[in-house]
């Protein structure tokens, strides 16, 4: 680990540290009751309790699994449909208004529909996460494809690349930064939709933990769930950044 990297990590830890201190001070000042804003220590002991009961691992694992599978499905669909819409004017005209309309359907609205169509099991949950992940990927990819430097597209055409070959050798590589940020947004939205997904007849997962603790008034557990979601969300985002940058590694 190089020194500048340590510097970066320190800088990145600055703001969380400040938040933690402020939280601690506010909680200690007694403006809010413990039920409203428990001090950091109490959240820590809630963590300990969950760990002791062996539940935490399960919550984290099942949520991560749902998000990963859902994100994989949703992002592949988003890339495919985004690519199609970016390539073909006809597909764009037919699909894009409907997709844009469906994009505005909130996660909570999907819950009863998916329950109706797909029942309770894992499928509807994963599908909901996939829906969440789909839209940012689709939107950014189709937008990016329609704004690629026409000079480069011309090079692809001049060298006999059409259709999928053009997409693979010119369009997607040229749109890489946009696609990457679309994927990251998709993953983030997958995590956001997870909570709604875990409203579907669920008794495990971080989203369930969040809702359940809200319903039962366990503010400490609720804050714990929020922090865990934030940490794992950030972690998976970083991981995605690493994974997707490595193959192209392009200092563009």
């Amino acid at each position, binding site marked *: 680990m190089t020194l500048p990297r340590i510097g970066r990590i320190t800088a990145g830890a600055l703001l969380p540290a400040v938040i933690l201190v402020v939280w601690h001070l506010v909680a200690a000042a007694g403006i809010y009751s413990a*039920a409203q804003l428990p001090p950091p220590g109490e959240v820590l002991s809630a963590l300990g309790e969950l760990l002791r009961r062996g539940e935490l691992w399960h919550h984290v694992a099942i949520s991560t699994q749902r998000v990963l599978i859902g994100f994989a499905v949703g992002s592949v669909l988003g890339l495919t449909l985004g690519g199609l819409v970016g390539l073909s004017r006809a597909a764009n005209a037919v699909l894009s208004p409907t997709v844009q309309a469906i994009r505005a359907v909130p996660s909570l609205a999907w819950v009863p529909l998916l329950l109706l169509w797909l029942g309770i099991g894992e499928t509807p949950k994963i599908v909901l996460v996939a829906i969440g992940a789909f839209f940012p990927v689709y939107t950014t990819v189709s937008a990016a494809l329609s704004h690629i430097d026409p000079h480069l597209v011309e090079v692809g055409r001049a060298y006999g690349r059409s259709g999928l070959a053009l997409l693979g050798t010119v369009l997607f590589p040229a749109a890489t930064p946009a696609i990457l940020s679309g994927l990251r947004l998709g993953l983030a939205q997958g995590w956001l939709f997870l909570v709604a997904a875990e409203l579907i007849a669920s008794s495990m997962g971080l989203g369930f933990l969040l809702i359940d603790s809200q319903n*039962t008034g*366990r503010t400490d557990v609720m804050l714990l769930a929020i922090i865990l979601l934030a940490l794992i969300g950030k972690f998976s985002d970083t991981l995605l950044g690493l994974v997707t940058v490595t193959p192209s590694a392009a200092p563009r």
Partner: protein
Amino acid sequence: GCVQGEDAPATDADGGGSVALRLDYAYYNPASLVLREQKWLETELAGKGVTVSWQLSAGSNKANEALRADAIDVGSTAGAAALVARANGSPIKTIDVFSQPEWAAIVVPKDSPVTSVAQLKGKKIAATKGTDPYFFLLQALDAAGLKPADVTVTNLQHADGRTALERGDVDAWAGLDPLMATSEVDAGSKLIYRNVAFNSYGVLNAREAFLAEHPDLAQSVVNAYEKARQWITANPDQAVALYAKEAKISEPVAKAVLTERTVLDIDPVPGAAQRAVFEKILPVLVADANVKSEADARTAIDTLFEPKYATARVVS
């Protein structure tokens, strides 16, 4: 490796002739917690090739949603919620009354000068529209001689209502247990008005299609609930411990809710007692457009109850 998720065990669909009984459990239905823990139904029905699965309901609305989507066969809700669902076209029947809870009451903050409902005139009150605490509030206002227009009702989810109350954003809260009990214990909030009769009972609803296909299973469920109720009365300490653990609340809160505010010693046959409450809240439902029309609601009141299972209950 993958984590075992919440896919139902694959026996029901393909396991030739085996039948699945899908029940819900809920924190507001202590008997269901006992049943799920003790596995009485599983043991009894295993011989008949019936598998039992349990599904958590976070609230009456979620139980109704699952019933509508054919995701469960029997679900537990508040009486009023069952009525609204039936009025809005859900094909369900109430087959059992599992408790007469006192889950709703009017709560004010610790230092509030308000001591009676009458003093709430012109004040701001938090409640979740369409739920029992809301109906409780309207009946309480009525009993105190106030009209709904005399107060400002702020629509807030139950948990948020508690926060709003403790923050001082509202003057009172039509609260719901166990949040209400927790607020009492933690923040010193005071219950200024209680009336067990204004609560709309906890009822067990089954899908009509399920009743037509498996009346025997419905009977087994009703029998098991009778047994659970008796067990709780007989083993209060164990029941409190179980309730506290499942609902993730402290034992004092659990004790208060279960032993002081839940009447389990009731007639489980749905009928006149519930109907009386429904009649009182019916105008509210119509006014708030919770039901399509008054006629629908009236029909629902007339057709909701299916008392024969509870009447025929036996404890094994």
